[in-house]
């Protein structure tokens, strides 16, 4: 059974010379390069949702983790844990979309593993991906944000909250349907473009679980600067706002899978924005705020009615309002 899976499914879709050797390890020739290495596991429910599936998520998520560190993603591993009885046609659809995503991103899936567990021991399918990329020394501090300073601008590459709402809508128990698709996407081309445009990019992070607010809070945590964000500048689709109003959710805390937060020197902000807006996944980019000298360690939101309030980290899960 597993040799059939390998030859008729995985090799068929993930086809490349490294994987085709079917050795216990892929041997990769990466000389004189600093490597970035990451891993993540995916257990999303439901496994199919508008705009993607667990497989696409697994590829994009790991590619994006490498990219926001300033790395050029090269190779991925993929591990599947399948619940006994998981339909092969569903697996094929997932694998096909993973292959397509990897191909579009110019990344090879060079090794993998599959385990089948008894019914009830996992929820349909879990996927782990790990990824290797090469990183230029000048991008060493991109993930750490050591050079962030007052005056720097904060940029996001488009609408927030799409993924979280798309997945929520696909769950049966909430009984609502939307036309929102997940924003799940590989951002390597977009990030590579802006890194080639400017050397004033101080920090990048992909905006996943916990949403925008959580990352902003992490940036200022125990730092000698603060952040001010303008609510009117934050791009959120009307449909997402509507669902959030109904359920009592805050879009600033909702997960995304194709969004990056960029902190950049103010002199290059406009240049970076022009490059972003020419990218398919950056058309709706916005400068949403800036790093400030005041209120150290805090994120302040200028609300849409001219008020001010603090933004804090997400604690626990957002739950629908009761009344």
């Amino acid at each position, binding site marked *: 059974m597993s040799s059939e899976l390998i030859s008729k499914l995985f090799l068929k879709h993930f086809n490349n010379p490294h994987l085709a050797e079917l050795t216990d390890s892929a041997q990769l020739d990466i000389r004189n390069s600093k490597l970035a290495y990451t891993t993540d596991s995916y257990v999303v429910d439901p496994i199919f949702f508008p705009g993607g599936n667990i497989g696409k998520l697994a590829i994009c998520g790991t590619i994006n983790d490498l990219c926001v560190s300033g790395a050029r993603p090269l190779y991925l591993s993929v591990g599947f844990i399948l619940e006994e009885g998981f339909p092969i046609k569903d697996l094929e659809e997932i694998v096909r979309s993973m292959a397509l995503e990897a191909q579009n991103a110019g990344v090879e899936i060079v090794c993998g593993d599959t385990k089948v567990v008894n019914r009830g021991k996992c929820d349909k399918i879990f996927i782990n991906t790990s990824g290797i990329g090469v990183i230029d020394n000048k991008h060493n501090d991109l993930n750490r944000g050591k050079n962030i300073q007052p005056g720097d601008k904060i940029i996001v590459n488009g609408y927030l909250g799409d993924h979280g709402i798309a997945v929520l809508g696909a769950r049966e*128990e*909430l*009984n609502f349907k939307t036309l929102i698709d997940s924003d799940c996407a590989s951002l390597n081309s977009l990030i590579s473009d802006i890194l080639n445009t400017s050397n004033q990019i101080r920090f990048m992070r992909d905006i996943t679980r916990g949403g925008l607010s959580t990352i902003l809070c992490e940036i200022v945590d125990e730092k000698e600067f603060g952040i001010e964000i303008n609510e009117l500048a934050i791009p959120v689709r*009307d449909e997402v*706002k*509507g669902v959030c*109003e109904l359920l*009592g959710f*805050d879009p600033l805390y909702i997960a995304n899978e194709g969004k990056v937060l960029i902190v950049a020197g103010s002199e290059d902000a406009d240049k970076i924005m022009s490059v972003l807006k020419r990218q398919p996944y950056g058309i709706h980019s916005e400068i949403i705020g800036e790093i400030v000298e005041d209120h150290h360690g*805090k994120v302040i*939101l200028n*609300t*849409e*009615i*001219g*008020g*001010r*309030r*603090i933004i*804090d980290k997400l*604690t*626990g*899960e957002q*739950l*629908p*309002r*009761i*009344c």
Partner: protein
Amino acid sequence: MKHIAEYRNLKLVKGLLDAIREASTKEISLMEVCGGHTMAIQKFGIPSLLPENIKLLSGPGCPVCVTDIRFIDKAIALSHQQDVIIATYGDLIRVPGSSSSLELELANGHHIQIVYSLLNALEIARQNPAKKVVFLAIGFETTAPATGATVLSAAKEEINNFFILSAHKIMPPALQAIINHGVKINGYICPGHVSTITGTDMYQPIVEKYKLGCVVSGFEPTDILWSILRLVKQFEGNTPKVENAYPRAVKPGGNLKAKWIMERVFLLEDTWWRGFGIIKESGLTLKPEFAHFDADLRFDIEVEETKEAKGCICGEILKGLKTPKECPLFRMVCHPTNPIGACMVSNEGACHAYYRFGG
């Protein structure tokens, strides 16, 4: 009309703030009773826009916050019973009981299911005929009709494995209790969603007995500011009255069908409110003809002695006597990932709102 942007129009907001500043000459304290109002006020940053002489106090309108510890302990005891599935709204699982919480009991393997609506809970009962499904029914007049309607459906279908553990409460007695407990306020921002069910007449006794203005408010910034303006004008002119500032959702007579369901299914009883103790005729219990759905009557359980968390001042916060910032545990020990009291757990709790939005 999208009913969002229109009520957040900057020009309107500024106009209302100017009018409030012009009308308000005296110190005034207003209580927003509803947790949804507390959240909206903090979320939009309204306190940062009001003149300093206007104070907003958060009241006991958060159903999770006012649910007493014994209710949680009962739910925990029920979850230990064989073949029982506890169905609950999500917020309730994090509320600390005397020695545990539903979240901890879930981690210990007891069958506790988060549901997003009562209908989910009833469906669980239909799909699991060998199990007994107990729904933890909390909330005010906004949610009680849904519980009532579900009980009527279950009765019609003769579903015999579905139960309600009711902690439903009604608002008017709490509004009186706040004043009787010595809280000094000059008007009520009355709950919007409760009033869609009840109508506005029930606030008239507050006006007559305590000479306090009662303005029913919506949840958008201009709704809240308009309500504050109306209360300021009433106070300045000493003309307290009931006003409906949410006419697009609230009718004077309320929702007749919902009110009928409540009267059909529930009786009033004296009940315990966190922070207040017993408030007479403020709780809803199932009528005798629906007693077979009442988990309080149908299960013989031992409930541990109630123990309040040391240092927690949720009670005073719920009455508006203190703000979360005056609690020594706030932020230091008590925060959403480690809530000491219910006010920090719920999205509508004052402490949670102050924590998230900076109060």
